[in-house]
């Protein structure tokens, strides 16, 4: 089962894992991305496209599920305003054996940084507000998957 969600509400990691794991899969891998409070960051805002962000995440999820024959996949991305420590993204991938689950998890987090319509804006305690620039290392990691 594939579950893809774009939401403004906080991501309940424990509840999502419980729902995902109800199938009792052989091997499950997870990735949890959180807002870092580096440099006095007070808010992270995620802008998204009302239709294309979800469509892009769904396309990646379906590609991963096919490539690694996943039994279950949960992909949740939060949008809107977030505070340091809050969860931005959750990936849960399950397959019969660990290799597929781990690879799918890494693929999804790498590719969603470069392929999906999402933009980060950082606000800092000193009043600075800046859109996050693309990092070359993110592009290189995403390109590894072909």
């Amino acid at each position, binding site marked *: 089962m594939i579950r893809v969600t774009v939401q403004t509400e906080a991501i309940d990691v424990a509840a999502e894992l419980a729902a995902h794991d109800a199938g009792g899969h052989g091997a499950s891998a997870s990735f949890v*991305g959180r807002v870092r409070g580096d440099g006095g960051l007070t808010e992270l805002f*995620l*802008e998204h*496209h009302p*239709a*294309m962000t979800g*469509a892009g995440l769904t396309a990646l999820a379906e590609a991963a599920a096919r490539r690694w024959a996943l039994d279950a996949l949960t992909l949740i*991305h939060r949008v809107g305003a977030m505070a340091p420590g809050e969860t*931005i*993204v959750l990936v849960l991938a399950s397959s019969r054996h660990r290799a597929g689950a781990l690879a799918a998890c890494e693929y999804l*987090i790498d590719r*969603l*940084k*470069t*392929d*999906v*319509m*999402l*933009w*980060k*804006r950082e606000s800092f305690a000193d009043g600075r507000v800046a*859109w*996050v*620039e*693309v990092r070359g290392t*993110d592009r290189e990691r995403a390109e590894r998957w072909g």
Partner: protein
Amino acid sequence: MTLDIAYFAWVRERMGMAAETVELPVGVATVGDLVRWLAMRDARGARAFAEPERIRAAVGGAMVGAEAPIGDAGEVALFPPVTGG
């Protein structure tokens, strides 16, 4: 031909709007043509599209390059490189 354009992130901020409907001039056939035309149209466009190499686009829901035809897409989205995850 009329075209709906949607702007995101700092492109939206520099344009001062999230979306608009424009009457395309003759000769604006590709995404690259559209970006060049917007850059010349007014001061906001000049600021938003000063560096066309930093602009990404989606036509009819698919990410495309500057050479992509607009055709009768209905909506073109213009935005900076994405930074999710």
